[in-house]
């Protein structure tokens, strides 16, 4: 093994012998996208993926979550999800304690999570799997994913989102970027939703109102 490592590095050094070593390019990270209404663009672009997206006031989150979950059986939530989002009656909620096996998750119909960032231009939500988003399997195996995003978490475009997410990555956290429900175009390029991930994505965009912004550090 050590032999292979030394040999590969030796080959690469030899291959670059005498080569002009290209300098590190100048960077323009986090350029702010000039969009008049980032929230409106986000809604338009998420809808474009055939996901359901609604705008709600902070006081309306619990009711909107309950509506989104109507008709489902059991719901799994991450341990850090705000409890007041699940105030509605008649919802059978399981809080993930890390002990649910893949088979258990497969028997659960829906999941509710928060998000870390929303990207307007691409209609993407990004989870950094903090306590209100849970481990990666939660938002993967159940068939319906209800995701609550706050306007303060929205950015214009991908470069700004990377700027916001960098600390999470450096801290070793995984990221999941979600743009619409699971989809494939492998059969004659006809788009079909719901191959292996959640078949339905329901995004609730919470207006900032006058409540405390929920953007996490």
């Amino acid at each position, binding site marked *: 093994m050590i032999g292979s490592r030394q040999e*590969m590095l030796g080959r690469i050094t030899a291959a*670059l012998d005498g080569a002009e070593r290209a300098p590190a390019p100048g960077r323009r990270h986090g350029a702010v996208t000039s969009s008049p209404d980032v929230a409106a663009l986000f809604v338009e672009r998420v809808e474009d993926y055939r996901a359901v997206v609604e705008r709600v006031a902070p006081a309306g989150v619990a009711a909107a979550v309950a509506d989104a979950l109507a008709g489902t059986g059991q719901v799994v939530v991450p341990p850090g999800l705000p409890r007041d989002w699940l105030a509605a009656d008649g919802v059978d909620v399981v809080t993930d304690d890390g002990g649910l096996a893949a088979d258990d998750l497969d028997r659960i119909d829906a999941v509710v999570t928060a998000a870390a960032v929303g990207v307007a231009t691409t*209609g993407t939500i990004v989870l950094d799997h903090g306590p209100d988003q849970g481990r*990666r*399997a939660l938002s993967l195996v159940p068939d319906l994913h209800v995701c609550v995003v706050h306007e303060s978490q929205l950015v214009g475009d991908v470069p700004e989102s990377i*700027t916001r997410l960098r600390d999470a990555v450096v801290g070793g956290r995984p990221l999941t*970027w979600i743009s619409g429900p699971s989809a494939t175009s492998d059969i004659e390029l006809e788009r079909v939703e719901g191959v292996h991930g959640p078949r339905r994505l329901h995004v609730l965009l919470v207006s900032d109102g006058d409540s405390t912004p929920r953007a996490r550090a």
Partner: protein
Amino acid sequence: MSGTFIGMPAFPVAAREALDNAQQRRNLQHATQTIRDKRAAVVDEVDRWEELRVAGAAIKDHVLTHLDGYLVQLEESLTRAGATVHWARDAEEANRIVTALARETGTDEVVKVKSMTTQEIGLNEALEDAGIHAWETDLAELIVQLGRDRPSHILVPAIHRNRAEIREIFLREMGKVGTPAPEGLTSAPHELAESARRHLREKFLRAKVAISGANFAVAETGTLVVVESEGNGRMCLTLPETLISVVGIEKVLPTVADLDVFLKLLPRSSTGERMNPYTSTWTGVTPGDGPQQVHVVLLDNGRSDALADHVGRQALRCIRCSACLNVCPVYERVGGHAYGSVYPGPIGAVLNPQLRGTESPVDKSLPYASSLCGACFDVCPVRIEIPDLLVHLRTRVVDEKRGGLPSGEQLAMKGASWMFAEHTRWERAQRGAELGGRVLGKKDSIGRLPGPLSAWSDARDAPIPPGESFRTWWKRERGQG
């Protein structure tokens, strides 16, 4: 059809067969046209797209010309994050490492997310030889695997199959290796996708080991990135206990910040979407979340040879988006199989001869599998000058041939150069051709030529010379004045 690329015929032979397949040509024409249009629309939405391309190329050039340093940094970051790093000089060594790691877990099956790198090294076959079943989980890869077929496109590997063929494959094969396709399955794409979901879910839920590739590997943090649509990637990267990722050494990026450029360039160039449905990033082991045994195999397999070529090196910038396939007039007509490799199309024509060398007939022929129209460069998100590289590689193929007896083609070219050197010789040759044209009569192209000329005529439809050349016509109409 065999599952291997070894022993494939050279491009002109394979292309001739492919051109006769009218169904495949229709499928390809529809597919490439559709993706081309989608890509063009979403690229037009981006201000300063060209600036992004330049940035992508510059980051890759920087990392490639400092690869020794960045690989060591990547190894350190990965190790710090709880992953085990392995180095593989070639396909055989990589397969040996992965097979041993899978065996150690005691499993006899692995789930796989689409990975061109593992196809390049023939990993599935190596695992099968060791008694380990490798299940492909991308829908198109599943179609290819169940059909005992080979992928024909980087992004949509089963694009050469239509829905009726896919239905037949599912009905015939799924039951042999797991959950069968439901009775009464129609060829509607949503039913076929549902059938794949049921078939694969059983495998995902019980799998102990997964194998992936990676789109990017960040040296700064040891973060790997997989870009996908279906969620099969997330299933593989999240549910099993052990994850083994085979990563070509050219996939390294210096910093997390560099992802901003590539996550804009890649989805728009490949599927023509603003963003693909799922992108996963992970950094070694995350306690309590996902695989707790994480291995990364860094693969050379000819990449350091390509790196040594100062012109050819730029092919290693490739991010496998497949935009060059979809605009290529040659690919659109012959399909991916004719290129005799996991990397088809224009990028395959430059990548394969560099990774594998130009000894075999297929690798010798690939630099010629192009009309040099330049469309591939125009769409390449990292500005790989594919036409220049093709010409560069043609020179290499010709140089390697020199020294022996001159070939028929070389003699013919010598003759042509003598003829063109003097206008009286050219005019005499044209008069000969007019005669030939009249003799050949109503045919519109020259068929197979005899002897050494057959190699030339077999790969081309040459038109019949006209009954009267322009020069003759000019003299007749306008006299000598």
